[in-house]
């Protein structure tokens, strides 16, 4: 069929959502659908612009498509008789980030008005869709809580899941992610100082700002961890990433209250590796189950250290949890075949 994938476009900005829309488009095409990715311009400051963009979306016509798959606010407001939603999240500033420091306060009164309009538009027009799918249980729960709407979770697969492999269970844990406060690389470095097994760590990712590297380096210096912590403070190549996954003992991913399970978790599972995460990590719990597919520990250095030692001293445990992780993916049937079939049915 003729399918239009609808997303938003903030000029000069590229992020995870843009990639996912691109991959979806490619996978629809590979399965014989004539597909076009359409992106509507969006900007949210000053807040009143949000109203203009909602109205613009409402006035936009997508022809001649048999199916429209909309992914982000406000693109899902575009009317179409055959529209399904694959929601990555709603407009977060109007919902779970409202009245938090992330929202910004300089437009207080105006913001409140705009927020009302956003919620009203979501309430009125989200139900137009033939079906609503979301990227995670977290998003589905919010949709239920804020707008009283039911939805089905449809996990986004990786671009090329087949590329991930498991070669060995080496002497290091791998932590690939942007380096930033909320991802908590510091927790891993602190924990390493408390381990007794001599387990190593490889931390890879670009820091949001260079200063985020300083406390990590200070800890390494103070605790004499030079031989045991390697930091690659930049985006590593896809090849190097696959290699590091393939030979890791396990993957560590302990972010603070994440939206969704996170690509890191999914990648680790495809590489047949257990994931060590924390009780307050949020979305990762959708995939990581303590003692089945990984370890879920308190967000404290001693608890983290204990989990790392357990895995390092008992490789068969690491292997068993890694196999469990791989089995979990089969159970969930996370695949582009399924995503394409679901969104076009």
């Amino acid at each position: 069929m003729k399918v239009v994938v609808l997303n938003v476009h903030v000029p000069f900005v590229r992020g995870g959502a843009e990639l996912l829309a691109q991959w979806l488009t490619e996978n629809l095409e590979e399965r014989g659908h004539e597909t076009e990715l359409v992106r509507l311009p969006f900007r949210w400051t000053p807040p009143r612009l949000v109203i203009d963009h909602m109205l613009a979306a409402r006035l936009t016509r997508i022809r001649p498509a048999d199916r429209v798959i909309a992914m982000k606010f406000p693109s899902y407001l575009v009317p179409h008789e055959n529209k399904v939603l694959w929601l990555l999240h709603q407009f977060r500033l109007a919902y779970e980030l409202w009245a938090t420091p992330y929202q910004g306060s300089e437009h207080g009164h105006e913001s409140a008005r705009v927020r009302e309009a956003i919620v009203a538009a979501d309430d009125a027009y989200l139900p137009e869709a033939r079906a609503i799918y979301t990227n995670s249980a977290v998003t589905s729960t919010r949709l239920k809580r804020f707008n009283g709407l039911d939805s089905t979770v449809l996990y986004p697969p990786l671009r090329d899941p087949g590329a991930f492999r498991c070669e060995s269970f080496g002497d290091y844990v791998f932590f690939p992610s942007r380096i930033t406060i909320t991802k908590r690389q510091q927790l891993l470095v602190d924990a390493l100082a408390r381990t007794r097994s001599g387990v190593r760590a490889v931390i890879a990712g670009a820091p949001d700002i260079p200063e985020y590297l300083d406390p990590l380096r200070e800890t390494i210096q103070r605790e004499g961890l030079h031989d045991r912590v390697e930091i690659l403070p930049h985006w590593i190549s896809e090849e190097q990433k696959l290699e590091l996954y393939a030979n890791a003992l396990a993957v560590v991913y302990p972010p603070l209250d994440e939206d969704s399970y996170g690509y890191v978790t999914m990648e680790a599972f495809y590489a047949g590796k257990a994931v060590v995460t924390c009780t307050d990590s949020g979305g990762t719990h959708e995939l990581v189950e303590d003692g089945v597919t990984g370890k879920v520990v308190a967000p404290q250095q001693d608890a983290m250290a204990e989990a790392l030692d357990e895995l390092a001293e008992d490789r068969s445990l690491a292997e068993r949890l890694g196999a469990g992780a791989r089995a979990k993916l089969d159970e969930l049937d996370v695949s582009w075949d399924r995503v394409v079939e679901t969104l076009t049915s």
Partner: protein
Amino acid sequence: MKVVVATTIMPFVKGGARILVDGLAKALADQGHQVDELLLPFWDDPEEMVEQMLALRLVDVSHEAELLICLRTPSYLLRHPNKVVWFLHHHRPAYDLADSPFSTRTRSAERRVGKAIHESDRLGLDEARRVFAISETVAERLRSYSGLDCDVLYPPLEGVDDYRCDGYGDVVFLPSRIAPVKRQALAIEAMAHVREPVRLVVVGAPDLPEHVEPLHELVNRLDLSERVELVAEWVPEERKRDLYAQCLAVVFPPYGEDGYGYVAGEAFAAAKPVVTCTDSGGPLELVEDGVNGRVVEPEPAAIAAAVDDLARDRSEAKRLGEMGRDSLQKLGPGWERVVEELTA
């Protein structure tokens, strides 16, 4: 400089606007500008045009870039204090096609929105700091319909050196989007009059699926299935270049085409003569009768006679085609100057 290049697109239709946007974005980046593209969906059904125009008008890209360059109509409704328009064409059903046989679909609706289109074009174009046209033909239309004086910037032809000539065979070639206004039907009808053993190959994606069937019917009715090959889909560049390389000539008879036509430019890049019509518009800026091609009345018999002439005298076809390659000079010095003008 931070530049946003905007155009409207029709989902699933691969027209010249997309090629031009990509070429321009690449040229801007090559010269050190930061550039992003906005491809805005716009479906030109008159029943739904006014709301879509309003949707464009609601988008303000002032904060995103220092310069906004708008191409296909009516993308210039976007708001920006530093807006430059490289005008491709009007919404032709509201202008030069209004009372022609090519004014299709719900004509009364077309008439109703006509005034809204005229007004919004005036608004969007008046706001622009500068307006350039892609051809003299379009510049002239802007003068007569909108009272606007503008300079011409021809879209540079991409990859001229990728086209080659393998001789002058027994096929005349018509590569173009399939749409009534491109007049594939006229070329097919001409084949019923052609005496020499020449075949016609028509290649191109249809704007709408319903544009294809009448052409097949025409081929059958005129009993031309041996002499006309109709490939109603987008073909890979390589295949297209092979067809250019091998053909005797290119037949390109659109009605009132806006630009000089990539088809005419590509034909010349492959050193092939172009047969076009006296009412074909833009191509006439490039094609001169007896110099680098043939310009004939938009009649099947006249086109057939021109094709027969070329088939009987291959050396004449070669002479005209090679002159055509020289006449590409007329398109000017290419992307560097285009970028200079648009960002000046």
